[in-house]
């Protein structure tokens, strides 16, 4: 295992985060704060409790997930797309490193950033609404697993994309709708039966549900099932990445 190389890629990516601190951390925090002001305080004050939890508190886990999902995907995809675009990927390809090590560097950095971001949003939310976390360790576990799995997805998108448009279209057109429709702002039991069934095909439902359980001990779907779904998702992503590197898909001709 080439630890020095993993560290080099990881630190390079984290340096990019610090350079673009405003964009990386401040803007998601700002937009999340706006959500809390609008949905949590303004609208939330007129909403009934869900599962015995005030609406403002109910949406906290969903909002964190929303940001973590989109940021993981876009950071990770950007991280690997840029060297491809600028040509500096030659250095990665000609270095004595394996595909796994490359992934660990890039995905590790993107996931770390998302985890930090998630925790910052958690603290920000605490300023707006009162809530407590019932299972902190599980909360962290869900946060880490989600960050890692969607950073893996972002990595795949970054390798697949051959234009900036494609790079942006997936987080915008796929991840965001899935996140919105994944029960971030409501319990899926509030939907008509047909939509409840359709929603179960949305992987984000399991993330949000599991994450919310770690806060309040209530969930839309079984927690064990949530974990299993995340595991399946990670395995699929890893499989696709392994295939990409084996065939040199879009990185090596």
């Amino acid at each position: 295992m080439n630890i020095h190389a993993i560290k080099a890629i990881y630190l390079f990516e984290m340096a990019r985060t610090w350079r673009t601190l405003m964009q990386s951390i401040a803007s998601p925090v700002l937009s999340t704060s706006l959500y809390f002001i609008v949905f949590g305080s303004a609208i939330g004050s007129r909403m009934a409790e869900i599962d015995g939890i005030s609406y403002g508190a109910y949406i906290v886990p969903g909002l964190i997930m929303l940001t973590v999902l989109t940021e993981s995907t876009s950071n990770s995809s950007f991280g690997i797309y840029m060297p491809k675009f600028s040509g500096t990927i030659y250095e990665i390809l000609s270095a004595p490193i394996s595909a796994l090590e490359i992934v660990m560097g890039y995905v590790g950095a993107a996931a770390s950033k998302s985890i930090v971001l998630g925790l910052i949003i958690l603290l920000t939310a605490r300023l707006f609404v009162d809530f407590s976390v019932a299972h902190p360790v599980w909360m962290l576990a869900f946060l880490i697993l989600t960050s890692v799995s969607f950073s893996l997805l972002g990595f795949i998108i970054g390798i697949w994309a051959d234009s900036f448009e494609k790079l942006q279209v997936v987080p915008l057109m796929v991840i965001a709708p899935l996140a919105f429709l994944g029960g971030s702002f409501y319990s899926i039991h509030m939907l008509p039966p047909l939509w409840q069934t359709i929603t179960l095909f949305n992987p984000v439902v399991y993330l949000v549900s599991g994450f919310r359980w770690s806060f309040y001990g209530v969930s839309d779907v079984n927690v064990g099932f949530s974990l299993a779904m995340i595991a399946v998702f990670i395995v699929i992503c890893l499989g696709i990445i392994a295939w990409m590197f084996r065939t040199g898909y879009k990185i090596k001709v």
Partner: protein
Amino acid sequence: MHPIISIQNLSKTYPSGFQALKSISLDIQPGEIFALLGPNGAGKTTLISIICGIVNPGDGRVLADGLDIVTQYREARQRIGLVPQELSVAIFETVWDTLKFSRGLSGKPMDKAYLEQLLRDLSLWDKRHNKIMTLSGGMKRRVLIAKALAHQPRILFLDEPTAGVDVELRRDMWQMIRKLRESGVTIILTTHYIEEAEEMADRIGVINKGELVLVEEKAALMKKLGQKQLTLQLQKPLDGIPTSLADFPLTLTQNGEQLIYTYDEQNEKNRIAELLRQLSALHVEFRDLKTSQSSLEDIFVSLVEEK
């Protein structure tokens, strides 16, 4: 001594169906400077990219220091440094950070003293805290060289290192390349500047349309293919070449004022004296004479045109 790079029947067909390399076989000896010449699109960059792991190899195989570049890529790549043809470097980074990054990728532990010396040698030490986007093209090229050397490779590939580099800097680079070789690094460079190959290389390979058409010691190449010409500036123009001189390869310029004798330096030792004696006997007198030797460029052009 086993070759430091051994290319064995290497072919490459791009997914487009274009065959960029046609069964190339070539051994590079440790410590030599090897120049790869060839017109645009000949396959130079393709060959280098395969050895460095940037392009997938087709048939055949390549050993670097006896290590297979595919199955033993880790060990092989640790020995190899690459300065790419394109100026691709992360422009938002500082010189020092990008160098540290390169060192890290190789898996070798950080060595500040070595990296400092490297930057000093390349006159980049003063620029170490500058972002790369603030550097000139020539400086960026040197940053790429520093990155390629950050892990102390035994083999260095330079893909057109002096493209777009001014005369002074080019001399500096040649100097640096020689110093590297003295320290035991094997150097493979591509270039479009024939004088560069002539100046630097121990051996020269010419590649054209994916085929290695020639590999030769530079000196031997110059000798073997280097034609010499003796030009005689005549006192009085001649109407034609005298018939008694018919077995000399002579040409007369249109105005009849210059007589040109083309010869191979090696086989024709005494013929010049013979020619001059005969000319004197025929009372053909000349004001001036000069000899000239064909350059690598002439050799190269004639080789590529033949195909």
